[in-house]
């Protein structure tokens, strides 16, 4: 295991498999009455979030606590960041206090990588701009592997705003590295040019993308970006790219429906599908804690932070 988890693009299939394998026993711990093992006693995990987040931050925090690490969370709005302190200086300060792991969410692509080169602590990228969100993709991979027993040979449709989605990018790298085929679909203005270079195929319409798919990942339509005029309206978006029961029937029977959250009900996904039997949305959240425990455990190998 390397010092940091920055993205899935650089990771090999065995490295990814190791994290997924480690998450299996971690999930057993999250189901116990006493959700606590002493493994990371005396280690400090600091969550530094320059963007709002509920599930990712809480998930990392619980994962660290279940492993007995001490955790501190810092959000940009309530820290020295508002006084103009740079990311590097904030990180150096935190590390000077003895942080072993820094979990970073930042609006700029490459922020985590820059930080990893600056500080001795292990850095986990919890989302950097529209670049990568590796822990989300790893929990997607874990959920699919747990439900279907494999990743190799599956067809995964990723639908929505690919352009702004770091989840989409990490999912593309993760699923293709593990041997699955990825199809992309969304408004033409939200498909980045040249995305085919990642190995994913771009589909012209939903029907083509869903046809026989084993997994359907719906991305959140970022309503705050709507004023940019990338799509005409929420209602039209729902009509062209929303997932309802009728469309879902085009996928393989029993196909898994996933969504990284938070969900815009009735926009990218209909309530009936979001709450249906094929929906993995809650399962994804549960698995997120186990996968993040695995990441924290594997990155906390001894004797390297001295």
């Amino acid at each position, binding site marked *: 295991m390397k010092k940091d988890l920055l993205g899935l693009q650089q990771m090999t299939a065995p490295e990814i498999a190791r994290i997924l394998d480690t998450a299996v026993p971690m999930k057993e711990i999250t189901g116990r009455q006493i959700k606590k093992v002493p493994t990371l006693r005396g280690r400090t995990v600091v969550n530094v979030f320059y963007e709002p987040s509920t599930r990712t931050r809480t998930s990392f925090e619980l994962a660290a606590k279940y492993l007995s690490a001490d955790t501190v969370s810092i959000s940009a709005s309530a820290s020295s960041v508002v006084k103009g302190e740079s990311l590097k200086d904030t990180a150096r300060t935190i590390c000077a206090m003895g942080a072993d792991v820094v979990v970073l969410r930042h609006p700029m692509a490459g922020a985590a990588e820059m930080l990893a080169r600056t500080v001795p602590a292990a850095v986990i990228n919890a989302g950097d701009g529209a670049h990568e969100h590796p822990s989300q993709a790893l929990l997607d991979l874990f959920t699919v592997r747990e439900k279907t027993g494999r990743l190799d040979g599956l067809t995964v449709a990723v639908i929505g705003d690919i352009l702004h989605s770091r989840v989409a990018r990490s999912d593309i790298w993760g699923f293709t590295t593990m041997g699955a085929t990825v199809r992309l679909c969304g408004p033409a203005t939200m498909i980045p040019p040249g995305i085919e270079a990642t190995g994913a195929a771009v589909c012209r319409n939903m029907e083509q993308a869903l046809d026989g798919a084993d997994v359907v990942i719906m991305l959140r339509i970022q309503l705050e970006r709507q004023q940019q005029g990338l799509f005409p309206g929420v209602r039209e978006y729902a009509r062209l790219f929303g997932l309802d029961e009728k469309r879902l029937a085009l996928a393989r029977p029993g196909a898994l429906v996933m969504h990284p959250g938070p969900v815009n009900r009735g926009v990218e996904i209909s309530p009936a599908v979001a709450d249906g039997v094929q929906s993995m949305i809650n399962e994804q959240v549960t698995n997120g804690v186990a996968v993040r425990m695995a990441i924290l455990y594997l990155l906390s*190998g001894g004797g390297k932070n001295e």
Partner: protein
Amino acid sequence: MRQKAQIMDREGIRRALTRIAHEVIERNQGTGNLALIGIRRRGVPLAARLAERIREIEGSSVPVGTLDITLYRDDLTTLAQQPLVHRTEVPFPVTDKTIVLVDDVIYTGRTIRAALDAIMDLGRPRQIQLAALIDRGHRELPIRADYVGKNVPTSRREVVSVRLQEIDAEERVLILEKE
């Protein structure tokens, strides 16, 4: 590693397990509240075999679980690479049970210390007993086995290798020496 001696063969292992099974039943006056938990890896097949022996003798089956103690090790901060974690599978409540922990070799006692903590995190057993196929001495903690297949005096330079059919496709116990 040089093979120094064979201290048990197939029959030896079989007889030791049969005796331990009898001792467990006698000491606990039956199998009423009993459960076995094998410590990964080689404690797992040994626990399964002990349960089978007990069933043959008493006609009642005892629950069997599997414990992975990796997350409870006391040397994690000193290892360069984190060891692989495997599943702990204890499909019964341990609270108020008499648990017999099963491992192949008891040596420093540190694995058992970790196993005791791991079990305590699953509940509050009435009692925990320890069965080991080989006791090779050199304890670093105040821990002892309740049931021992064979006591083997060793030096610290030696390694006791328990080879089991289920994992190693052979059945014997060897003493190896580092060269």
